[in-house]
């Protein structure tokens, strides 16, 4: 069962038997802590009988569709009022983004645009203005959707997340965070508090592209992000990541390694893109077939690398 922020044993897994166009919200107790301390107290009080949310842009649809079901009496913990989690902190080498930072905050932040432009690019193509105004970075990651558009940029940026529990805070690379569709390493009692992103440096460049059946407000059929670091005319290191091609957002190691030490000429880029597509085994679902996903993944990687090169010149 998918989870927003861990802690969901109140969620029952009985299958939806009846077709009901829109389902009732569960009876719940609404908690809106304003400090981390209050949050951790609430978590320790309610333990696993609580559900943590921020923007609610996935929580409510999940209930309406019957994807998530909760027993009455659910303790909802809304972390959006915790100021410490609503900030984008511009540290020396990293951006420290609170889990409650909205997608609009990301999109309109000059700091993010300067230090992690690939994230800005991705967020620009996500959801609608209304949803971006409430949906949060933390929520997008914790939903652990394979199609989460913030994930590929974070993967290529070597970002990590901070996870808080009663024992303290630990940091986990984003690449290790997702464990399956709707599943992450978060366990009951844990909260994702921050996302830390190394800033882009000189000679580095990153790009994001996605494809959907429609242009706007669309869940990706495939999304791709690429980050390269150049050393003269050669690519020193590369990161390539995809969304919607595997149970989790993924990086493609062989294709990344292939680029290292090579000049980014057409032939190399094409080979790399082909390798990247070979490394993934997407599925066929409602949005697209596996064949199309592989096919278009190759094109997206190619174009992302070209975007990177263009940005560098």
């Amino acid at each position: 069962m998918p989870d927003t922020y861990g802690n969901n044993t109140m969620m029952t897994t009985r299958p939806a038997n009846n077709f009901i166009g829109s389902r009732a919200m569960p009876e719940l107790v609404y908690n809106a802590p304003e400090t981390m301390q209050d949050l951790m107290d609430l978590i320790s009080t309610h333990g696993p009988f609580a559900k943590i949310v921020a923007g609610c842009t996935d929580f409510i649809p999940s209930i309406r569709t019957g994807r998530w079901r909760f027993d009455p009496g659910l303790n909802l913990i809304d972390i959006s009022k915790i100021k410490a989690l609503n900030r984008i902190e511009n540290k020396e080498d990293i951006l420290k983004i609170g889990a409650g930072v909205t997608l609009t905050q990301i999109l309109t932040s000059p700091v993010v645009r300067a230090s992690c432009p690939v994230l800005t690019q991705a967020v620009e193509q996500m959801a609608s203005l209304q949803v971006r105004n409430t949906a949060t970075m933390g929520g997008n990651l914790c939903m652990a959707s394979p199609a989460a558009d913030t994930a590929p940029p974070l993967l290529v940026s070597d970002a990590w997340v901070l996870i808080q529990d009663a024992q303290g805070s630990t940091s986990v690379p984003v690449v290790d965070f997702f464990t399956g569709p709707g599943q992450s390493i978060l366990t009951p009692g844990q909260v994702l508090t921050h996302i830390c992103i190394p800033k882009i440096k000189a000679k580095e460049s990153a790009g994001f592209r996605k494809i959907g059946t429609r242009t706007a407000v669309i869940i990706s059929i495939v999304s791709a992000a690429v980050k390269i670091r150049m050393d003269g005319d050669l690519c020193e290191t590369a990161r390539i990541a995809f969304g919607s091609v595997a149970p989790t957002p993924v990086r493609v190691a062989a294709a990344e390694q292939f680029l290292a030490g090579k000049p980014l000429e057409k032939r190399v880029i094409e080979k790399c893109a082909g390798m990247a597509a070979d490394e993934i085994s997407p599925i066929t679902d409602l949005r697209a077939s596996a064949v199309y996903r592989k096919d278009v993944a190759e094109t997206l990687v190619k174009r992302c690398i070209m975007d990177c090169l263009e940005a560098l010149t």
Partner: protein
Amino acid sequence: MKIPLTFVLNHQKTTFEIDPWQTLLEVLRNQGRKTSVHRSCEEGECGACTVLLNNKPVNSCLVLAASVQGASVMTSEGLVKNGRPHPLMKAFTDELGIQCGFCTPGMLMNAYALIQDAGDTVLTDAVIRKALEGNLCRCTGYINIVKSVMVAQKSKLAGEWW
């Protein structure tokens, strides 16, 4: 168990007794009688229930009412002054940026925020279209809506605005 909820609704401090599971959409429609806030998909896809929450457009179907404690919420009723249509509303009427009228109130709120935030920058066709991407309309093909927003911004730049 009902809880009291106090927030600024259309410039007026308002208190309702709500159920904690209620969405802002339900509270605005049922307790607040703001029936311009239209309900359709209830999943944040159509934009018909768009209202301004602290001056930002949000889908009120995706906001828990309990979370707007102390906030400011504006519906399209809040644009009306002494029974007079807001210049933005007038633009939508004049340019016929309305057909069935169901998406209109949400569209108005999004457009209002867009024009407010734009300041003196003249809004282009592309910028308006991008901003309105979350407000689905099945009748107008959006063309007269975009035109309405442009005309409305002209009114604002000419000082006819509130």
